[in-house]
């Protein structure tokens, strides 16, 4: 493969790329060889040059050769595929654990000290173990530069992946398992830093410290940012996947409950039910099933803070 274009940035790159090179190398030899032979036969044994065919029904020797040789070659391919994959299976004991939460349609990364981000920050040359949680549907965490991918399965325990970043830089991180409307926007970045810089970044809890002191409004906004509300609900009145938050608080909303249209007041009760049971009352003009419950992810206290924030979005 053309490895100059996809950055090689983890301990698995060598094994994966070797499997690619071995398989593609053998494949190209066969593809080009067989195609050339085939085209040669088509010209050489054309009716004009060879008006009479020589009847040959087969050859046991040849059948054995072209069964055994490809078999051995595929076993070589299998070996390289296995050898590159085997070390991915078990993370070293001293790996740094980071919890990844996937939901429609963003990733949240939670570090051992409780720090949460939407971009994955990593120290160079340190084994990293990502514990994968999915809150709603299947997602898949894919970092091409590291040659790793693992599905995130709701309800699956002890689901993890590991790798060791070996090159500083910023790399793309995608969701590779189709997860609905905004699937192609469910991507983020990995930033690999020198160990010291990473430690400074990790222990810099000024943001966390501020959180305690900040107002419920600011807390509400931060909670919403972290959990990804704004991917689908705008603050400026524009229509995204869901209705905009602009000026929602305290106004009459036209919603569809079952098949019936009705008017409801956007009060505390309404906002709570919109978060815990989003498909019960659908705002006119928006589809069903696009948002799933956040029960278990957002506490009543969180929702209280969210409401305080929504009051300010005018």
């Amino acid at each position, binding site marked *: 493969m053309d490895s100059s274009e996809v950055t090689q940035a983890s301990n698995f790159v060598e094994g994966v790329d070797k499997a690619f090179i071995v398989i593609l190398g053998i494949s190209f030899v066969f593809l080009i060889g067989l195609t050339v032979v085939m085209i040669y036969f088509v010209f050489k044994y054309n*009716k004009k040059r060879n008006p009479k065919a020589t009847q040959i029904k087969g050859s046991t020797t040849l059948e054995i050769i072209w069964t055994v040789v490809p078999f051995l070659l595929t076993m070589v391919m299998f070996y390289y595929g296995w050898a590159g994959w085997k070390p991915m299976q078990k993370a070293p004991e001293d790996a740094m654990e980071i919890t990844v939460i996937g939901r429609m349609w963003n990733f949240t990364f939670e570090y051992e000290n409780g720090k949460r981000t939407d971009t994955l920050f990593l120290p160079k040359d340190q084994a990293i173990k990502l514990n994968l949680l999915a809150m709603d549907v299947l997602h898949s965490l894919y970092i091409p530069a590291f040659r790793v991918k693992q599905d995130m399965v709701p309800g699956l325990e002890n689901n993890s992946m590991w790798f060791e970043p070996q090159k500083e830089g910023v790399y793309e991180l995608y969701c590779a398992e189709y997860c609905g409307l905004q699937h192609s926007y469910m991507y983020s970045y990995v930033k690999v830093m020198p160990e010291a810089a990473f430690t400074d970044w990790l222990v810099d809890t000024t943001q966390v410290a501020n959180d305690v002191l900040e107002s419920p409004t600011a807390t509400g906004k931060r909670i919403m940012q972290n959990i990804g509300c704004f991917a689908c609900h705008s603050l400026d009145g524009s229509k995204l996947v869901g209705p905009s938050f602009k000026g929602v608080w305290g106004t009459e909303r036209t919603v569809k409950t079952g098949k019936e249209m009705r008017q409801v007041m956007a009060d505390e009760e309404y906002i709570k039910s919109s978060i815990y049971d989003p498909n019960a009352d659908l705002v006119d003009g928006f589809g069903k099933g696009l948002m799933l419950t956040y029960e278990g992810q957002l506490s009543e206290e969180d929702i209280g803070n969210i409401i305080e924030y929504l009051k300010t979005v005018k």
Partner: protein
Amino acid sequence: MPTTNAVNGSNYLTYQGKYKGLLGWILSTDHKRIGLLYLYSICVMFCVGVLLGLAMKFELLAPGKTIMDAQTYNATFTVHGVIMIFMVVIPGLPAVFGNLMMPIMIGAEDVAFPKLNLLSWWLYVLGVILVLCALIFGEGTPDTGWTFYAPYSFKTGTNLLPAIFGAFVLGFSSILTGLNFLVTIHRERCPGMKWTKLPLFVWTLYGTAWIQLLATPVVGITLVLVALERLFNIGVFDPALGGDPILYQHLFWIYSHPAVYIMILPAMGAISEIIPTFSQKHIFGYKAIIASTLSIAFVGYLVWGHHMFTAGMSGTAQYYFSLLTFIVSIPSAIKVFNWISTMYKGSINIQTPFYWAVSFIFVFMVGGLSGLVLGALAADIYVHDTAFVVAHFHYIVFGGTGFAFFAAIHYWFPKIFGRMYDTAWANIGWLVFTIGFLALYSPMFYLGMMGMPRRYYDYLPEFHGGNILSTFGSWIMVTGFIIILVNLIRSAKKGEPAEVNPWKSKTLEWTVPSPPPVLNFETEPFLTEEDGPYNYE
């Protein structure tokens, strides 16, 4: 109507039985008429699928919104997949050419159960209508992808159940066709048609029929489980109810992977007829090709897990599935070697079906060899769920089955309609189509290796170049398809009357008039010791 050279002055196209006009077709139990009914219905569905594919490629011409929003795009690739897989390539060659040609190739008057055969077509039509209704009516078109992975498929839309029920009915159509062909091949062969004299197309239909019969019921079981879950909240697949989404993937692929061999085996069979005919030479390694057909049909059941290397299976299972995947590639390689060897020292008459057959071998090799990348554990982890996979299976399912279908229609066309097509236009159509095909799907290998995930409505700017080429390719390919289609439709009505055996083939369908009479043979054929499907002088 087509000119007939049948002795009794009437052929299956002109024959009038109990019913007139359209009823005479949709109630006919004649295997050839049923074959044509499948051909027309599949062609209509194929055109719909092509238009949807064209729309998807247009959307991907540039990053961001081009012609449709994300929801429409997701629905488009879902419907494209459902139509192409369940309504076009799975019935494809067995239902069309199996029905049209197989009974004649074994010297039979019809299939073993003609009424069941008609029922199969009606079930196909019913299944298509059910699925299309589920897609069109109700709260929005499903946007789950053709794989309907849990739990997303259980959370979106409300029309999943009717859609899967439609797929279930389509499955029944497939099961009944398989059963019918199995009995026909066992019981209806003419005197002297020993198993070792069976044309290879019939052998591949035989292997296919076993897969249809044994693998398709898994779809039925999955449906029952989905229905139990949806109607009675019994947690099977949905983790919210305590179910296991990975179990769904297992059940889905236990059927859908063997289904790939339902698609490709008859394609290989058609190629195994065309290459000896146009080389005027005995097929190389007849028994090796049969053995490879049967081993594909058998080992094909045991490799479904290679769709799930990143899904969270145990390490041992991954190891095993990867190993078996490499083993199942061997019989396909054997076939390629035998086809190319058949050309050696032949007397090759290059005609349209032969162009298609040779290009089939090329695209099938690309598809198969790229499959080895996906069968290797480490490499698959990297390119799974990327554009690489999309390129791979379009090379196999469209390049393989599609090219073989075009080869087969250009091969048997004179027999089916009793008329010849315009060869020059057919060759131009082939050339344009093939160039378009290569331009459409080859860039996807590159995009996948660069890390572009599949089912992406939008993409980062670094993937733009490959997508532009791919979209241009789709326009060229569709141009080629229109040329082919117009030429064939025109020729079916106005072409030159065809000879009984225009390609000088040795199989039995070329001994009956073009088009064949209703019960195929005036007198029951028989094969002597010297006769055989590939016994060229």
